[in-house]
């Protein structure tokens, strides 16, 4: 199934799920010199960053790691696959979560829950909040 799905399809599907769960979602949010694929805000002002990848989990983790500086939690989201021990170990070491999306069943599974990042920066957090605020004011999600 993965062959027919793009990262954008994956993000669209997950966005739908998160909206149903009550999250507020923003796409392509700039954070310092990078861009977060998706930011999800809970009612409790928790900021979750989600990085989407169809494969290449190492690259996904490298990008997700950069987002930990400003977010309460960071996850990578990939299509359902056999998750290798190396990948799960690497995610666990970084405190990054793993979401898995099954296109056939239109199901979003939380495989690994993220932990709060050990090192966050008030400066980066402020930048991200400003970027989210600008998106919200512009009505641009």
């Amino acid at each position, binding site marked *: 199934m993965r062959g027919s799905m793009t990262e954008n399809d994956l993000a669209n599907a997950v966005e739908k799920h998160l909206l149903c769960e009550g999250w507020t979602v923003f796409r*392509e949010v*700039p*954070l*310092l*010199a*990078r*861009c977060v694929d998706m930011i999800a805000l809970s009612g409790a002002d928790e900021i979750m960053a989600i990085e989407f990848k169809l494969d290449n989990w190492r690259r996904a983790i490298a990008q997700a790691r*950069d987002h930990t*500086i400003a977010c309460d939690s960071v996850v990578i989201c990939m299509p359902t696959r056999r998750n290798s021990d190396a990948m799960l170990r690497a995610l666990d070491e970084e405190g990054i979560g793993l979401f898995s999306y099954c296109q056939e069943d239109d199901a979003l599974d939380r495989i690994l829950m993220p932990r709060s990042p050990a*090192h*966050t*920066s*008030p*400066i*980066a957090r*402020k*930048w991200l909040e400003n*970027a989210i605020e*600008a998106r919200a004011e512009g009505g641009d999600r």
Partner: protein
Amino acid sequence: MIPDEITTRPWHLVRYGTPAEAQYLCDYAASFDATVFNANMVAHAPRAVALFVGERGVKPFLIDPLTHAFQHDPAVLMNKDGNLKKSIRKLADQYGSLVSDRAGITPINPKDLSQAAIEEMCDAVMLFQRETIVKRLEEEGLTDYLEFAEVGAIARPMVLVAPYFFMGAQTWREWLGLNISFADCAADRTDGEPLYLELVIDQAVLADDAATTTIASAYAGASADGVLVWIDSFSEHDVSPAALLRFMSLVRTIHSSGKRVVNLHGGYFSVSLLGPAGGSILGGVCHGMEYGEDRAVVPVGGGIPMARYYYPDLHRRLRYADVLRLATRRGYLADSRAFHEHVCDCPVCRSVIDGDTNRFAQFGEGREVSFQRKGQLVTLNYPVTASKDLCLRHYLERKRIEFARHISIDAPDADSEANVLRAVVDKYTEDLGLETVAYLLGWAEAIAPRQ
């Protein structure tokens, strides 16, 4: 002429890139020794350069004649409309009939340089350096209140630079003899002014031991007081330790002939060669405003600096976001004491932080810019002017500190400098990865090889 106060000490040179940079050169005049102008800038904006020299430039200067510009495919000299860049056209018109006739049409080749052509070009290039700024100052009425000797001291370059051509790995044999002929010709035309040669070569030449030895010997024996070295795109952060050693060997050979050797595009590694850590084989290093620690020979001129924060321990500019991540991870933004102890305690950083590390944000303030790249929307954060200004001032402070460290009475020797560099690698490898910091090991190995 070279002012007495800098005759014997190593030079800290700063390149004047654009008139917009003049203010920084004035503000930091006390921290460097002389200014370097590119000849195309002098030809294109003589008034701005003359006013800088006459009114604000309290520093001696030299002009890189950029004669190599006319040996390349004219395509590299064109603007985006396909016309010869104005600054190059104006320069070509000052350099005699051969250059003026060929510029933008066909490149100058070795066979074009007869003795008569060499002499004509040499006359024109020397005259341009000697007189362009003086003439402009006279036109502006700024020499009226100066004595004749003062005009010379202020408005004439401290050294003259002979015309020169770039030497590639396949072409150095053709150009070397001509470059030495230009040196001899220029030496005959000096009027007591110090004469410098410019040695501009491809990195690949350095990889050829025989070529490097022959070229170094030829420049060591040439009739000149010093040599300005420019290795094409020679990034001290990227080249191999072996390339650094070959660069040092080239410099050492010329230095041992008694000539001052200046790296026209150098970073911290070159600065360390000014002092005991590098055997004092270099007699000067030039850099630009944040950019210019390495430079490609073509395209000629141009280059827009991007604001980055110069990370002192690593001796390189990093993207603000990367500095923020690194400093956060290591706890250096926990309080101002930690920041100044571990990141930077220069006057600019002390003034910005002012007891509150949240103010570090001022180095990275930006505006969002979105554009399409490979069909995808990319959003980047471009620094605002105030951030660029702070990053540049911080950079200039750090350069002042780096030069002072290596030319002071208690400058480190090779072993202690290498130990410092290796300690920095140990400190940052876990966060940045060995690949990111390995160049520091290369520098350490070049100046103090482990037995």
